[in-house]
């Protein structure tokens, strides 16, 4: 499904214009909404392929808009946020947003993020048994993971972590989301603080250079994002 219609919900006309310019260059239709209520209505009426949502709306909190839309739409949502509002970003991602871009953002970055979340495996699609991104191939049925064709040994937790990250490639997963998926049924708390340590160890097994990761990207204060196939290709 190609990216055809983008909805931008922002009360600042200049930002709306900047976003419109960025996407119209690629012949993508941009629908504008200046407040949260209008944004929810437009999302219902226009059925956009992607929604860009600003956090500082005058009428509704961004998280309300996000929850409202998520009740009936799976369209990817990219949040525009101010710097230093990590808690807000995390809350939005937990509420169903797919990614975020920090203001002042660069338009190529916004477009790249938008395309990445749009290309992602859609929600509710049939579960794939094979995940392949860059040199990493995960065969879920055979429970084998290879890097450049060589098998990699993962502990059970690392395996789950890798599976969740790879199956959501392109989407920023918050620490809470990752924890829920990996440690199913466990309370969010003590073990959660070791999540970063598990990710660190996983990186050492998957990445050529763990401090310059190609696959598992850190979104400081928010969570982790597994790079899309396109990102890995362009970075190598």
């Amino acid at each position, binding site marked *: 499904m190609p990216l055809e219609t983008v909805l931008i919900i922002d009360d600042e006309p*200049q930002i709306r214009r900047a976003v419109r310019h960025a996407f119209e260059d690629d012949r993508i239709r941009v629908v504008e909404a200046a407040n949260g209520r209008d944004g929810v209505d437009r999302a219902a009426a226009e059925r956009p392929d992607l929604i860009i949502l600003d956090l500082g709306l005058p009428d509704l909190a961004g998280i309300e808009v996000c929850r409202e839309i998520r009740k009936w739409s799976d369209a990817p949502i990219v949040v525009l946020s101010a710097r230093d509002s990590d808690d807000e970003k995390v809350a939005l991602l937990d509420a169903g947003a797919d990614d975020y871009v920090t203001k002042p953002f660069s338009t190529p970055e916004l477009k790249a993020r938008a395309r990445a979340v749009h290309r992602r495996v859609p929600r509710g699609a049939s579960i794939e048994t094979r995940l392949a991104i860059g040199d990493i191939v995960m065969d879920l049925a055979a429970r084998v993971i290879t890097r450049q064709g060589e098998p990699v040994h993962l502990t059970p937790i690392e395996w789950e972590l890798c599976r969740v990250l790879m199956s959501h490639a392109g989407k920023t997963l918050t620490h809470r989301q990752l924890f829920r998926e990996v440690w199913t049924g466990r309370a969010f708390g003590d073990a959660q603080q070791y999540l970063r340590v598990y990710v660190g160890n996983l990186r050492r097994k998957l990445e050529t250079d763990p401090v310059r990761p190609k696959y598992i990207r850190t979104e400081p204060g928010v969570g982790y994002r597994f790079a899309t196939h396109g990102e890995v290709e362009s970075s190598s």
Partner: protein
Amino acid sequence: MIRIRWSHWGIWLVVFVLTTAALLAVRSRLDKAHVALLYLLLVLAASVAGGRGLGLVVAGVAFLAFNWLFLEPYGTFTIADPLDWLVLVTFLVVGGVAAQIVHLLRAETAEARQRTEEVDRLASLGARTLAHPRAADALAALADMIRSTLSLRECRIRATTDLGASTDEIVPWVAQTGLAAARLADGTVRLAESADPDSLLGDAVTLLLPLSAGDTVVGVLELVSDRPIALDQKRRQFLAALRYYAVLGVERVRLEAETANVAALQAADRLKDAVLAAVSHDLRTPLTTIKAMAEALAADGDERAETISVEADRLNRLVADLLDLSRLRAGGFPIRLELNPVDELVGAVLQRVAGILGGRRLVVSLPADGPLVVGRFDLGQSIRILVNLVENAHKYSPPDAPIELTVTVDGGDIVMAVLDRGPGVPESEQGRIFEPFYRPADALPDGGGAGLGLAIARWLAETQGGTLRYEPRAGGGSRFVLRLPAARLDHLQESL
């Protein structure tokens, strides 16, 4: 000085005459002892009531009356029985001594009472002085009290910090040396060798006395009179006591001013922080627009638009720094101490600075293969510290010199050092580089930030239980060392 109260004397004359008349009426039945005792009683009573003078006069008159009226032969001053002389002389001596003793007692009582009054007066004066709602009023009241008590033309109390309007040029000298000084009627100046005015009294018309709190001269007491100032013992004591009050008064004025000053500064500070926060926030939106538009133009091949974009980024960093500073001071900087692998910290830093370094190499060295190095720190804030250090290194280094980022483990600390081959920091400035708004003396006008980076970085490091230090680098350049607490994960490594 003996004041004679004639009415008093008149009363005692009448009492004496009546007593003598009564004695005369029963003279035949009296013994000499009766007369002597009764007269002694009168002498004592007169001494108590009217003082030594009256006592002695009553004793003298009683002596004569005794002789004339009650010692035979009556009506003459001659005495028949020589033993009567003994009676008379003894009477006179006892009367005199009694009058003297009563006098001494009275004097002591009076002195004690006066002392009590003095103490009461000083105490109430002190209380009044300290109780004045405004310190300046209290000081004025104190000066007025000294002026009226010592009968001066003028009395001024000056604070050392505010000598500007003084009429006499020796005032600053007194404030500086802490020694007393005087000006004589002919205009000449005399200086004392101590803070006490005693050696200057007698011919000074102006006295200048230092007001000292401990070793510090906090003010000068200026006494001006039309006549040479002569102070008796009591007035000198009074003056000495009031000098202490004057010290307290001057100190109070100073403290009051300081308090007002601090309050004003705090209010200004709050306003400044609020303005900073509002301005930085409102700058974000136009910056986003400028950047987006410039990038759109740059994509079409306009090189000037690229510059606009880069500058917008720089402006954004500056705004972010200012916002951080205002938040940091408001205590609104959330610090989350969590377990974080050093790989992740270094990785995030490399990602952040990639766009800034251009063609410059950043050499990273990590501990040799081993278990994951994990620390307990705030990831986001630690990234900021290191990004700031790398940016600084980039800014001050020659273009072809690589920057080094080394990570080592030292006991319970993770030690991260950023090394450059820049000019380093002169020893005289090493203590100041972590102060807000510090910029090197020779910094280029467009050198970048507002001079907040290192101040914020150090604050962030210390808030996380770490340190940030500067060291000169061997062979030239700077070495900034960030230490963060490491975490032990033995139990976790086993479970992996």
